[in-house]
């Protein structure tokens, strides 16, 4: 009898447990793990990167024999591997950036840094470069040899050529084993003579982004300004192959932000915390991020300074020219002004100790189209 009671109680308890468990499972909240498939009409082709690439002047060149074409990456307009004896190698890259990328001195010093040579002063620049004329224009050529063996265990050499165009700068660089690069110098200079540019093919040349090679998808190509467009933008040494990446996740020393993929990080100056080229069919804009201690004269003074830059009369209250925006607990003041085809879209972030400026300058049409993206970008600005 006792045994019967015991087992009955056990059955009872177990049943309760099973009931609870079964009910629980029945009521399980559906975690969304279901894969769905559907067909949608194509969205209109993305503007921006594709058209920007299509609108760029197309480069043509003839590579010397022995240069093996490489797939390269999104930033490069051309990439070659030059192989020598005993496994010696050199890499040839062709890269372009909008603007003057900080000027000749900054660019030469950037290359000097890559072969661990100390920077030179402006006065020494004429001695460090030679000018080579070619069908494409005048190239500034530098030949830099590392003083000590570098990572590869042997001295490295850079043969670099800079070609400045009104709206963009082209960089042709051979870097590798010092002996091999020296042996290739004649070939490199001969290669520069083959460089030519076609007229921009125009946005109509590309129907949609799928027509671009995969690696170039979504990535601004080379020169994104029309050839007659005034140069905009500046650059910071060391940007190098960073440009043309799919996204720029920037971390300033203090504030942080995330820039859209199609904004190319450019180099800035020592003053800049961040610098981007914003390109579109309308041209290229320059986005600078700077920070200064204090309130820099106050919001009204800054707003009127920007209005002055555009040739607009000053306003008497900030509210006439700027709107507040809240982002991640930060109070931003967004200024938007345009005149004579040029526009400034900027934000002031006033903080207790310093003031940050996010300023986009460029053609009116470009800035107007970029405004939603710029405001989205501002919303990514965070204080640590």
């Amino acid at each position, binding site marked *: 009898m006792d045994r019967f009671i015991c087992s009955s109680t056990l059955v009872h308890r177990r*049943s309760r447990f099973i009931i609870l468990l079964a009910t629980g499972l*029945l009521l399980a*909240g559906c975690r969304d793990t279901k*894969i769905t498939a559907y067909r949608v*009409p194509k969205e209109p082709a993305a503007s921006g990167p594709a058209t920007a690439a299509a609108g760029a002047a197309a480069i043509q060149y003839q590579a010397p024999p022995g240069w093996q074409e490489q797939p390269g990456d999104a930033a490069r307009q051309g990439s070659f591997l030059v192989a020598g004896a005993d496994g010696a190698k050199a890499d040839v890259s062709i890269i372009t950036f909008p603007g003057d990328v900080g000027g000749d001195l900054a660019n030469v010093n950037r290359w000097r840094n890559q072969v661990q040579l100390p920077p030179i002063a402006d006065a020494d620049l004429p001695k460090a470069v030679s000018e080579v004329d070619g069908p494409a224009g005048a190239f500034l050529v530098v030949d830099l040899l590392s003083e000590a063996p570098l990572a590869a265990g042997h001295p490295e050499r850079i043969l670099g050529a800079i070609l400045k165009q009104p709206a963009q700068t082209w960089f042709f660089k051979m870097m590798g084993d010092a002996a091999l690069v020296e042996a290739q110098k004649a070939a490199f200079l001969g290669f520069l003579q083959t460089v030519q540019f076609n007229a921009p093919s125009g946005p109509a040349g590309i129907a949609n982004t799928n027509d671009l090679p995969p690696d170039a998808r979504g990535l601004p190509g080379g020169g994104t300004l029309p050839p007659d467009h005034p140069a905009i933008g500046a650059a910071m040494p060391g940007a*190098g192959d960073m440009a043309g990446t*799919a996204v720029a996740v920037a*971390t300033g020393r203090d504030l942080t932000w*995330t820039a859209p993929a199609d904004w190319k990080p450019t180099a800035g100056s020592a003053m800049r915390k961040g610098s981007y080229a914003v390109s579109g069919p309308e041209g290229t804009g320059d986005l600078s991020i700077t920070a200064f201690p204090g309130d820099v004269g106050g919001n009204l003074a800054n707003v009127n300074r920007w209005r002055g830059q555009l040739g607009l009369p000053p306003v008497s209250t900030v509210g006439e020219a700027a709107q507040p925006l809240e*982002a991640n607990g930060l109070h931003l003041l967004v200024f938007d002004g345009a005149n004579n085809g040029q526009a400034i879209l900027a934000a002031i972030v006033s903080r207790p100790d310093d003031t940050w400026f996010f300023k986009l300058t460029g053609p009116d049409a470009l800035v107007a189209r970029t405004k939603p993206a710029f405001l989205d970008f501002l919303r990514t600005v965070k204080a640590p």
Partner: protein
Amino acid sequence: MRAFLKVFVDYFTSLRLTVILLALSLLLVFIATLDQVNLGVWAVQQKYFHSLFVMARIPGTAVAVPVFPGGYFIGGLLLINLIAAHLYRFRLEWRKSGIWLAHAGLILLLLGELFTGLLQREGMMRLDPGTARDYAESTLKTELAVIDTTNPSYDDVVAIPEGALEKLSTLQTPKLPFTLRTLAYYPNSALVMRNQAPNAAPSPADRGFGPQFVALAQPVTYKEDEQNFPTAFVELNGAEGRIGTWLVSTLLTEPQTFTYQGHTWELMLRATRYYQPFSITLLKFSHDVYPGTDIPKNFSSRVRLQTPDGRVDREVLIYMNNPLRYGGFTFYQAGYQNDRTSILQVVRNPSWVIPYVSCSLIALGLVIQFGIHLLGFIRKRAAAAAPA
């Protein structure tokens, strides 16, 4: 079997269970309210209420164990308890019709909450003037879109929700000619350029943008003004072997393309899209302020509503507190980005009417029940007061 049924009935009809469940729900609401400080409203909803169990990690491990019954569990049991009590304990009689009605309302309310939790979809639609959209984007959920873009007129999309990605398993669907294996999944992440992180481990990705970046896992944020940026490494394997490994991230705003078996494919981790069978085109966004001030007076969006078959093609004005309801979707004027871009909140909740019905039923039930009692009381008083 009969014994089992009796156990079942006894258990679920007991008032003790009701009291325990109500006490547990009180406790759940209390703890969840406190935890809002850490997690914010949405995450608390998911963790405490839209879950079977409240899970917690064993310190020092990644193992999560249930520590408390969740909202679905308590609510579900309450529902069963209530229904079972009515079936087995309560008698259907006029005197108790009010209680029946009120309880029916309560049952409906519980069901409504369950349906809302399971079926409600909420997203944002961002519209520039002249832009037409037929989908809203979730602000909280992400999906990996694997898109066959070969056909020039349409895209075949396979959308894999983050819930499937984070299991780190191999996913296979007849819609894809390859399998997809998640090698790593970070619910929140940052990407840094590889040349800025020289000591980083080699990237598992060998295709697309991945090799250029180092993905850094970040703590998940629950703050309402912050956003998580999920990143995953996915490996694609076809019949002939491995195709490649890609880094996908919501930080990458452009899709990555590859070709396989003559088809062009795109990979993109993006905000989950909720498509609707009609399109909305923004004609004009207006942002009015009170004269002489910056104080917003009204936001409104004049939109064009169109169905693909052309049967519906009309203009609608959406403004604050005056949403557009169409086809089971509700479009609220949620915000704006400048004086041009309108942001509409798009909500689809097939069970939105249930709370109204259930509250009406409860109210009606209570009125009837108290009315019956009141009448009985008045009769009793009248009878007592009547001269013998």
